[in-house]
């Protein structure tokens, strides 16, 4: 990734450069303007919280690279948080396995609807979103489900390891695997090629269905992992959480320079995109704390929208200036 950033070759490289610059600028802005902004407490709690979104965005990144979309991640995470909360009395490993299994199950379902029944990803995963929320509410009887505090389950979300939040370690680990997969394994090339055009990939002898199936399964699994962390971090399985996570993840991926049309994308820049968007919330909270202006929640959404606008327009500008592509 870094060599590409130093010597940008394509529009994507430039967009990735853009997101890193924006992230650096925002952090610098916060550090100069607010006391305690770069305090370890603030940074670590930011990382702890955003690790869930990072996991979801990683799965979304793969899905979007194939030219698809996964709207179900929020619902699946909610479901997984409930399932893992139920399993938490049997230990942290059981909780984690259960949450991830629930996520994987929905990932496989998505994969089946899209490759087997040939339903468009937008609709298939929209349905999966509804169904996963429904199941989460049914299982939890419309309430949050307390996790067990007798086992080490909450450790997954609340403890630190080497001074760094465990959820952030998990997310980091997932991103390293994701990066190796996409950049260093043949299968990663195949995912990219499928996104370039399914018909073409098929004629070139790739097992397109299997690849597409795989990315939705992976996205489900990661959403399950995020849901597990949700339960562990907040001590409860929450059937109503996760609303809008899919849009956050999509926005992070796009801000990271991955095109929704598929065929190109970067794992590292997606992480930067998550941090950038997550940081915006944090900055808004600090801005409110300054007391100059007390931004209502309404202004906050206007500002978030404007911020997204500025970032994507800048990206569009940057890519427009990159070497022209012939076709």
């Amino acid at each position, binding site marked *: 990734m870094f060599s590409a950033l130093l010597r940008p070759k394509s529009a994507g490289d430039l967009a990735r450069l853009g997101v890193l610059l924006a992230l650096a600028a925002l952090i610098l802005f916060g550090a100069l303007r607010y006391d305690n902004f770069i305090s370890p407490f603030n940074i670590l709690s930011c990382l702890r919280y955003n690790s*869930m979104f990072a996991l979801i965005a990683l799965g979304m990144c793969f899905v979007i690279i194939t030219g698809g979309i996964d709207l179900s991640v929020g619902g699946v995470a909610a479901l997984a948080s409930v399932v893992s909360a139920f399993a938490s009395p049997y230990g942290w490993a059981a909780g984690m396995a259960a949450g991830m299994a629930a996520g994987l199950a929905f990932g496989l379902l998505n994969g089946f609807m899209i490759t087997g029944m040939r339903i468009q990803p937008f609709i298939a995963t929209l349905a999966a979103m509804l169904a996963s929320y429904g199941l989460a509410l049914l299982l939890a009887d*419309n309430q949050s489900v307390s996790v067990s*505090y007798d086992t080490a389950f909450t450790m997954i979300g609340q403890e630190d390891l080497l001074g760094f939040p465990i959820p952030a370690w998990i997310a980091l680990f997932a991103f390293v695997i994701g990066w190796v997969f996409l950049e260093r394994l043949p299968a990663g090339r195949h995912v990219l090629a499928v996104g370039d055009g399914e018909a073409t990939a098929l004629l070139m002898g790739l097992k397109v269905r299997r690849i597409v199936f795989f990315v939705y399964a992976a996205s489900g699994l990661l959403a399950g992992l995020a849901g597990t962390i949700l339960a562990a971090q907040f001590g409860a399985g929450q059937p109503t959480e996760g609303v809008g996570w899919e849009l956050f993840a999509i926005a992070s991926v796009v801000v990271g320079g991955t095109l929704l049309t598929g065929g190109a994308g970067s794992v590292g820049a997606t992480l930067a995109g998550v941090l950038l968007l997550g940081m915006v919330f944090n900055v808004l909270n600090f801005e409110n704390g300054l007391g100059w202006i007390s931004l209502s929640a309404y202004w906050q959404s206007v500002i978030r929208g404007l911020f997204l606008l500025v970032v994507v327009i800048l990206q569009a500008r940057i890519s427009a200036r990159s070497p022209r592509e012939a076709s």
Partner: protein
Amino acid sequence: EVPALKQKQTYKVGFAQTESNNPWRIAQTDSMKAEAAKLGYQLVYTDAAGSAAKQVADVNSMIAQGVDVIFLAPREEKPLIPAVMAAKKAGIPVILLDRSVDPKLAKPGQDYLTFIGSDFVKEGQRMAEWLAKNANGKSKIIELEGTTGSSPANDRKKGFDEAIKAAGNFQIVASQSGDFARDKGRQVAEALLQAHPDADIIYAHNDEMAIGAISAIEAAGKVPGKDIMVLSIDGGKEAVGLVAEGKIAAVVECNPRFGPKAFETMARYAKGEKIEPWVINDDKFYDSTNAKAELPNAY
């Protein structure tokens, strides 16, 4: 023990609101802001947009900013525990507003200072008890629930359903979520009235859905208050006015004006007073007997 609070001229206080998508929450926020402004305190206000997880992150950012006190309107009982604990660890007293946290996991006077608010279960109960006395032979109830999974919806349903069962003679023929919203409440009521033409009571978990239900009743060619009795919770001005008009039979108030009581409690604590674990908000009850007189006082 709950962290201590020094007596100061002015404070920097945090208020972590859960959402601002309904009139009740807006009134609550306004009341908090107005009171802080009156006292000359600096208010750090956050809005979790309906996400318990974000609310925890919001509280963490308040801790990072070093506020003196945190007012927290917890979105949910359990998931906000980590926020309460983090504040305690950082030496910041927390005062809970309008909803509490799981008593098994955090205790007033120990992990947080106190809980100010009313009891959603009790609101449902009060309504059921009133109905048992004033039903006038009506008995078939349509219940319009709040947002599925939210604690006021769960509690108002629980309190009402249990009490009405105890009262006997009543039957809940349908119970569906109207999302605390007027439009959705109306649409659900339209469908349910169509499927259950014999229903003669509608119990809505908030004013908005009750008002939606009234227009559904009228659209179905029936008369609210006569053919169908409408019951609601919240007691905003519009609803109380409708009680006065006779379209709504009764409303349990759930007052959102928390500002004065919240800041007063905080001041008492700073002075060193011992604070009771539950500062109860006394809520009114409106029906045809008092609605006209109370209308000017409704929020």
